[in-house]
């Protein structure tokens, strides 16, 4: 039985050469404004995320340019604070999260044998809310008082002191929150309801598991963030005093609510990365993922634990000693399931038959650097030590290891891994490897030295610093420009692949790749599964039975 119905034309000139090619700017624009196809929407998400990644990157480079040497050379302190704040908001909500949603859109239906996402129009709406939110965020730079400068955490009461840029950020967060919640509902429904009947839960690819759990985290915590910023909004304009002690409120309450969102948010940006890496490593080791079951349980444990560790972001706020001890122990325990994941990846590589194409390089880079970020996380969990390191460059280094070398590297691994399946074309392997090595080297030049700055006592979010911090700051700034420029190479590699890449037609582009999308034609047909496919299982590998 031909269930895949690859009845669309197999031209490989363009990715949307179906239903008659939309040609001309207006037709293409109208197509993307109205498309409900999961692949098109996934593509929109990914390009949106990349544009936001470059915008946030420009802000980061302005920050590093100012910090190149002591003294204020380029920007005023207030604008510097706007840059650090917006860099954080844009990267977290504009780049990393939408990029993972883009992967979910492309990959979830392909990997579980669904025809599309469960709610196709909702899917389109989730996406188009994001550019509106981005306009509000970026546009706030051009208001008279500038963008919000309260830090991406928007701590009250500093955030109640800000200008209209703060209100625009609040509404942008509302929009992005609605988008994330709708996206999460869509992903959960698709995975639970539209999975091929022959694929039991415990045989879903780990990418599907991690996204399923991530989607539940999103539904649990995005409303909490929306509540926190709405309380800020009413404190600012409608006379409430949730976060003002003079009116019976408490500034620390904001931090509790924010971090109750904020810590699960960290895992929202990490779990799908685990999923991507768990797809890439077995493919290039030509060996099944080690400890699949324990990976699933470890992901679930991390997600549950993420709800009870939030106050480790607040060890210097003046918590009672029993509170500190609870949050310290709970935080340290997260190292156990995270360690299990790293051990499982290494065991997957062990006695494999490995090759090192670009996706594998980024996945290995991910494991090494994410582990370093995990180690410094363990250091930071030690409360008496965190007292020294809280709000220093040590923390900046820590979360960039987790979010750049962690989430971002996994996204690169994912793009290089799946782009042949998406476009039917192969990227330039030499340039891909160059992109990896440049990113790897410059990332470490930028961020490794920041550990030393933090230990030596340099606070974060300062536009100017004491002279003893000058040398490492200069090193870090040089690294940052190298890292930023390397990402233009990535842009080139992707465009070059789409336009001039060598056509590939074998289903299983990578020898060891074993999830369902690799049993589809390459490029994946515009409508992949009209009816749920019947599957045979060849070990861990699903094969479409005809």
């Amino acid at each position, binding site marked *: 039985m031909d269930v895949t119905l690859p009845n669309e034309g197999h031209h490989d000139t363009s990715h949307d050469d179906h239903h008659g090619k939309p040609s001309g700017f207006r037709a293409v624009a109208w197509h993307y404004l109205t498309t409900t196809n999961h692949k098109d929407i996934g593509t929109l998400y990914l390009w949106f995320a990349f544009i936001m990644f470059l915008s946030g990157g420009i802000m980061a480079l302005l920050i590093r340019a100012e910090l190149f040497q*002591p*003294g*204020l*050379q380029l*920007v*005023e302190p207030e604008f510097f604070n706007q840059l650090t704040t917006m860099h954080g908001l844009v990267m977290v909500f504009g780049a990393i999260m939408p990029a993972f949603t883009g992967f979910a859109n492309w990959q979830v239906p392909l990997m579980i044998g669904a025809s599309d996402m469960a709610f196709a129009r909702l899917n389109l709406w989730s996406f188009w809310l994001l550019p509106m939110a981005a306009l509000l965020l970026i546009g706030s730079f051009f208001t008279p008082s500038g963008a919000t*400068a309260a830090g991406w955490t928007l701590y009250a*009461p*500093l955030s109640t*002191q*800000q*200008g209209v840029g703060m209100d625009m950020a609040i509404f942008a967060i509302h929009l992005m929150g609605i988008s994330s919640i709708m996206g999460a509902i869509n992903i959960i429904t698709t995975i639970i309801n539209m999975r091929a009947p022959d694929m039991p839960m415990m045989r879903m690819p780990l990418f599907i598991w991690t996204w399923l759990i991530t989607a539940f985290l999103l539904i649990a915590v995005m409303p909490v963030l929306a509540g926190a910023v709405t309380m800020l909004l009413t404190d600012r304009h409608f006379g409430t005093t949730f976060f003002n002690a003079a009116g019976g409120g*408490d*500034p*620390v309450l904001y931090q509790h609510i924010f971090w109750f969102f904020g810590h699960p948010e960290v895992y929202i940006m990490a779990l799908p990365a685990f999923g991507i890496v768990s797809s890439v490593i077995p493919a290039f080791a030509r*060996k099944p993922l080690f*400890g*699949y079951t*324990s990976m699933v349980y470890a992901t679930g444990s991390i997600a549950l634990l993420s709800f009870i560790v939030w106050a480790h972001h607040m060890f210097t706020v*003046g918590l*009672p000693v029993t509170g500190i*001890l609870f949050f*310290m*122990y709970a935080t*340290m325990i997260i*190292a*156990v399931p995270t*360690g*299990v994941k790293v*051990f499982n990846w*290494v065991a997957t*590589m062990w*006695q494999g*038959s*490995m*090759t090192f194409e670009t996706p594998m390089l980024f996945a*290995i880079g991910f*494991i090494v650097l994410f*582990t*370093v970020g995990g180690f410094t996380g*363990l250091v930071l969990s*030690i*409360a*008496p*030590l965190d*007292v*020294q390191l809280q*709000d220093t460059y040590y923390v900046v280094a820590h979360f960039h290891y987790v979010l750049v070398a962690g989430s971002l590297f996994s996204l690169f691994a994912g793009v290089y891994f799946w782009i042949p399946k998406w476009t039917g074309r192969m990227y330039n392997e030499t340039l891909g490897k160059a992109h990896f090595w440049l990113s790897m080297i410059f990332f470490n030049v930028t961020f490794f030295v920041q550990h*030393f700055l933090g*230990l*030596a*006592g340099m*606070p974060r*979010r*300062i536009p*100017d610093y*004491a*002279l*003893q911090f*000058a040398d490492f700051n200069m090193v870090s700034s040089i690294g940052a420009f190298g890292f930023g420029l390397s990402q233009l190479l990535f842009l080139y590699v992707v465009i070059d692949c789409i336009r001039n890449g060598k056509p590939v037609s074998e289903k299983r582009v990578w020898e060891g790749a074993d999830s369902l999308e690799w049993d589809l034609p390459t490029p994946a047909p515009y409508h992949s599964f009209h009816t749920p496919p019947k599957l045979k299982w060849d070990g861990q590998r699903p094969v479409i039975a005809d």
Partner: protein
Amino acid sequence: MKTILSRLSYLIFSLLLCANAAAAWQLGMQEPASEMAATQQFLNEFVMWIIVIIGIGVFGIMFYSIVRHRKDKGYKAANFHENTLVEIIWTAVPMFIIIGMALPATSAIIDYKNTSSPDLTVKVTGIQWKWEYDYLDKDVAFYSQLSTAPEEIGGKYYGSDATANPQSDHYLLEVDNEMVVPVGKKVRLLLTAADVIHAWWVPQLGVKQDAIPGVVRDAWFEANRPGVYRGQCAELCGKNHGFMPIVVRAVPEDEFNAWIVEQGGKVAASDEAPNYVGADTTAATAEDAAPVEWTMEVAMQQGETAYNTYCAACHQANGEGLLPAFPALKNSKIALGDIAEHIDIVINGKAGTSMAAFSYLSASDLAAIITYERNAWGNDTGDLIAPEDIKK
């Protein structure tokens, strides 16, 4: 174990680690000047060694595999994908390692949070962008703010196009009035803030505590040797967050008592209102007594200096303010309007806004500032306010 570990670290890092407070290319933490800071440094090295050893193990196995188990060397993939015993071991062993780290951390944090039985209590208030120290039983209170010349930081700091020229030894880590404390005494801090959240942090003393408006938190430190210890505000608090340093001078107890007396305070406890000291009142006494005639020129000159010290951080040197929190004074209703209202808002502040009360300044500084505000930047009211007009 503690000594072995620290010796081992120093052996390896001795060429790299500097023993100074903080130096160029420094890799580790600043040299501790309190037992708490020493404990924190020990914990850092202790945990660091554990993660270095685990890292060498895990990455070592991984890189061995990367070198050996390659397709281009003809290595054939095995097909195992689980091993219950191994999985139990690598879940259980980290649990024990974590318990090993949690034990010293627990006793340290219990000690850190124990603020009982202090020898001296100082109330510390974070204000955008300076610190106020109030020695509660000593009748001594003063403000402490950055003393690095704005010209060193550069024109971007105060609204001109002057080039930065950082050079002083303690650039950005120096203040006009240092906090002085006795060595070997437990100093308890009561921390709060006037506007937004700040954090009081001195790395060598091992203490960092947020100062939160409307809330009082406490913390403690005990300097174990004389010296000058420098730190900074550690919680983003607005525009000049990077420019509100903390300097603590630890001196022997008799020197401390002499300092208290010199500041006009009392060594024994007292319940009178604190006596504000520092540059403000000493300057005031000198100038109030000086037989200089109070002319527009004198007032404007003194006013410009005082304005740039106390007002310009918010209202800016050019009087244009920084919206939305800090309104312009140039062409403002207050500066061009009723004199009594202008005096009132400067002395008493304005509730519900960031405008602080400046009643602690001398009458002549206040008169000079108000005169300056009413006549600078094209606010040509011609009003000359005399120190006698200031009734607190």
